[in-house]
């Protein structure tokens, strides 16, 4: 082990102490200013559950606060930390076409809508169902594997307000959401932590048409982010 001079050791120790103090201060200020919500204590949760008639063994999860994030604007997207109660820049409506339209669970009707985009998905997957909250504004679909398990879901929609809000969080300080550009268009990629075997997704805003495309993978054992981007590109190429 290489020995450092005493003054350099002292400088490093001071830097570490200052960083730790700043982190504690930021968390304290965040809580004190009410920028984040205050979750109930485990005791409160248990009392609450018993009062509601829940009997027997009760496992109460203790939340782990992470107040290290602040809102960030990236192109049309506004990253908002989950639980953020502080100020945000104003959201405003945009004059996007496609007002009205009925909700539908009819896959055929959704596929026939003007906003539907065909997605090319990997071999072995097939369209299970499509639905829409408003046939003129959004089309959503889910693709499943041979066993019927959901693997890919897609969304095409006309966002009605700007900026486009993206709720973000970290995994112990590791960023899970990233702003990027795909083929010159603003986009956001996200993932859940590796140990969670969770989801991967990408969303892209096509500024010329005002349409946002999104692809989400719920089975990440065989598909990865590049697969999600390829599926999203196939939707972009389908009609635009």
């Amino acid at each position, binding site marked *: 082990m290489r020995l450092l001079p005493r003054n350099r050791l002292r400088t490093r120790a001071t830097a570490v102490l200052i960083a730790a103090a700043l982190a504690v201060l930021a968390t304290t200020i965040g809580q004190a200013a009410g920028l984040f919500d205050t979750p109930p204590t485990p005791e409160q949760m248990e009392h609450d559950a018993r009062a509601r008639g*829940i009997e027997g063994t009760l496992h109460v999860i203790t939340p782990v606060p992470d107040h290290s994030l602040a809102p960030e604007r990236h192109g049309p997207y506004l990253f908002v930390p989950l639980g953020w109660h502080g100020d945000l820049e104003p959201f405003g409506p945009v004059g996007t076409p496609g007002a009205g339209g009925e909700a539908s669970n009819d896959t055929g009707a959704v596929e026939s809508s003007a906003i539907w985009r065909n997605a090319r998905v990997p071999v072995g997957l097939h369209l299970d169902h499509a639905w829409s909250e408003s046939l003129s504004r959004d089309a959503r679909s889910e693709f499943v594997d041979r066993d019927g398990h959901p693997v890919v879901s897609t969304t095409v929609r006309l966002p009605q307000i700007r900026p486009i809000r993206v709720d973000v969080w970290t995994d112990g300080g590791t960023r899970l959401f990233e702003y990027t550009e795909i083929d010159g268009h603003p986009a956001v990629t996200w993932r859940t932590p590796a140990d969670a075997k969770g989801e991967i*997704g990408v969303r892209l805003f096509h500024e010329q048409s005002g349409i946002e495309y999104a692809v989400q993978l719920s089975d990440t054992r065989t598909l990865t982010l590049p697969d999600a981007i390829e599926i999203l590109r196939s939707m972009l190429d389908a009609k635009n």
Partner: protein
Amino acid sequence: MRRISRRITAVVAAVVSLALLAGFLPVTRAYASTAQHDIMIGLAVANAYVSQGWHSPGQSIDLQNAGGSTAGVSVYSQTKWISGDAMVAYKASYISDCTGIKAEYKTGGGATLGRTAYVHINVSGSIPSSWNMAASGWTVEYLGSVINPEPNAPGQGGNDNCAWTGPHEHQSEEVATGSVNSGLSAGNSYATGSTWLVHLSD
């Protein structure tokens, strides 16, 4: 002596058979060895009023406090162990036009059994990325509180894709393997300490 013993055995067997047929004796329920958990109502009130039954998109239900105001009421991921192994719940990514969070429920081996979206809630910033659904009793994880007003609703300058006319918890279910409780209907109240919405089974 041997004949008496045989008679006693025959009588005991007959009594036991009759008791079983009549349901007097407990019969061990034949659960599969696989994991089974129920997803319960998330709204933290004693009784939840179903203001809209299962509706589109997917399988969704709207819940309010049957005994008072709904705004600000806590919302939990509440799951109840039925049999078998523990499961794992994950804070999942969520694409939505409204305010809310989605939880994903998996086996210990990583197979997805279902997802639940908890919508129109002020999402807590302190939800862990995953938590264990214990192989006994209830597991309760705080997700947030019912928001009022919903900032993404059309009347609040939001978008038409976020239907909202007052404080409620919209809970929607995607089930890969399991079943949805179809016995719930709009206009009725249900005890949250015993009413399940989804039965997960691997």
